């Protein structure tokens, strides 16, 4: 095995990991605040990608600029999904929540299928063809920019949650809903905002990754699985866990692709999911809870 190839895998894996981190931070935020698993997470991300695609082809806006628009649009989608649907089942049994979110995922994926067709798409960006050599390893400039923006956004989210009043309120409601209610928090509004912010994360992540990763409507499922992998490794509800987990899973998938046939990459991530579920369901940074 060529060492350069392995090193190359490590670099591309880590750079792609920024997107994974951003995606997983969104999922873990939603779960941490209202204990609902967003099964439609990957499908929402695919909508971010198609939005970036439409903006690039119709209005000529580069995805590295339009990601803010995509984030705003997905914030609105998340806010509406929470207010209209999730809000009614926050206290329902888990099975009901899962079925509802499966329904949302089915609708999002197949509306995309009807609207955009099944062919794989990719958004063109002038950055995507540029490369940069770091010793023997080449660095894809698009990946580097994606990574930097994704990390910047994750940091911004961090600042929002820990340094602003609304962010503190969200964390308070996540920690102790009852206590937050007692001190007069509008918990329903906090839930809707948190769901919106979680969806905005994948809106931005989708736009940022659209020049790198060819996508089609079913891509949503593999992105959802990747998010579940990361969030379970990192510990459900843990922001730090989601960030670190994103880098780790991306690294593992990238190295898996170096050593395994590309068609077996999916096999690898599903096996990883089973192993994680069995040996460490509370994750690396999570607290064990029911």
């Amino acid at each position, binding site marked *: 095995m060529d060492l350069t190839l392995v090193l190359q895998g490590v670099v591309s894996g880590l750079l792609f990991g920024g997107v994974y981190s951003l995606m997983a931070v969104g999922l873990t935020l939603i779960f941490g605040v209202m204990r609902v698993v967003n099964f439609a997470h990957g499908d929402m991300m695919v909508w971010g990608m198609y939005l970036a695609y439409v903006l690039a082809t119709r209005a000529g806006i580069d995805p590295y600029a339009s990601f803010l628009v995509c984030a705003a649009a997905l914030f609105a989608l998340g806010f509406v999904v929470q207010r209209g649907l999730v809000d009614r089942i926050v206290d329902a049994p888990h099975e009901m929540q*899962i*079925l509802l979110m499966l329904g949302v995922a*089915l609708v999002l994926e197949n509306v995309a299928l*009807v609207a955009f067709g099944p062919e794989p798409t990719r958004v063109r960006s002038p950055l995507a063809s540029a490369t940069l050599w770091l010793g023997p390893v080449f660095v894809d400039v698009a990946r580097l920019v994606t990574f930097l923006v994704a990390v910047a956004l994750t940091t911004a989210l961090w600042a929002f949650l820990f340094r602003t009043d609304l962010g503190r309120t969200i964390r308070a409601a996540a920690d102790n809903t009852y206590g937050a209610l007692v001190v007069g928090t509008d918990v329903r509004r906090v839930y809707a905002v948190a769901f919106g912010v979680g969806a905005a994360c994948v809106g931005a992540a989708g736009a940022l990754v659209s020049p790198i990763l060819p996508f089609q*409507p079913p891509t949503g499922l593999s992105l959802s699985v990747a998010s579940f992998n990361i969030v*379970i490794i990192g510990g459900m509800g843990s922001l730090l866990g989601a960030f670190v987990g994103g880098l780790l899973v991306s690294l593992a998938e990238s190295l898996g692709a170096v050593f395994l046939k590309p068609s077996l990459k999916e096999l690898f991530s599903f096996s990883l999911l*089973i192993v994680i579920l069995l040996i460490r369901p509370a994750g690396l940074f999570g607290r064990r809870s029911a």
Partner: protein
Amino acid sequence: MKWVLVAGVLALLALPAVLSSYALTLFILIFFYGFLGQAWNIVGGYAGQLSAGHAAFVGVGGYTATMLSIELGLTPWVGMLIGGVLAALLGAIIGYLGFRFGLRGFYFVLLTVAFAEICRVAVSNIDALGGPLGLYITFTGNPRQFQFQDGRVYYYIALALMLVATLTAWAIERRRFGIYLAAIREDEAAAEALGVNAFKYKMLAMVVSSFLTGLGGTFYAFYLFSLQPNTLFGIPLSVEIIIRPIVGGAGTLLGPILGSFILTPLAEISRLYLGQGGLHGAHLIAYGVLLIGVVLFLPEGVYPRLRRALARRSGQTR
């Protein structure tokens, strides 16, 4: 109520005499999906363990019977049982891991989905099993090969499968086993505190359910004459299996059948009219909307609501 059911079964037995060939196909699909839904209902409804990977059992059953028939010339009537046993074995492995490691709710859903997807990707990568293109069965019309010139035979086999699954569910429901499963579904800790071995009964439910579902794989393969990993192991089939009992009423005896009578014609009609216009995802959008609607407005399903409405009416007339 009992006489209504007996009359219903007799009517279904006599029905092929008056059905057009399109209606016959529709009824075959209603029975087949009713059968799969009823098989899922045993573990997903009665035991309350939400498996979202039941397509894996259809796939294992179908591929087993087909391979045995193509390679060894074994009649699918026997291959069907072997396929069922292998599916039950897979069910036992998934159940053992899930229940022994205490995976509940979301985690159990993920485990079942992951296993089904692993099967799908693995079969797509094994050339001996036809790879991504799958297997094709040549039509001989030989009943020994599970093939029939007359479509009505498939009708009676599908009806028999649905009745077998329903009688199994009925037998479970009336026995202590059924009561234990209900107790586990409602409050597992309380059931265990009263001495119910939750692990054992959840395993049993999983094995019975996956065995029955595995039998369905053979019917699927020899009715359509082809198997592809993406259709047989894929998530869309798992959704088809789950959605009927959920809509009809999970954990009730007639819920999955009622669900199939409601949804199968809807799905076929939307496939017929929307699929031709190139709108392939259309019926799945309808499923998604339906799932959301049922969760929000009818969480226990159609059948329990219907039964209460009927009981109220008969109470008034008396």
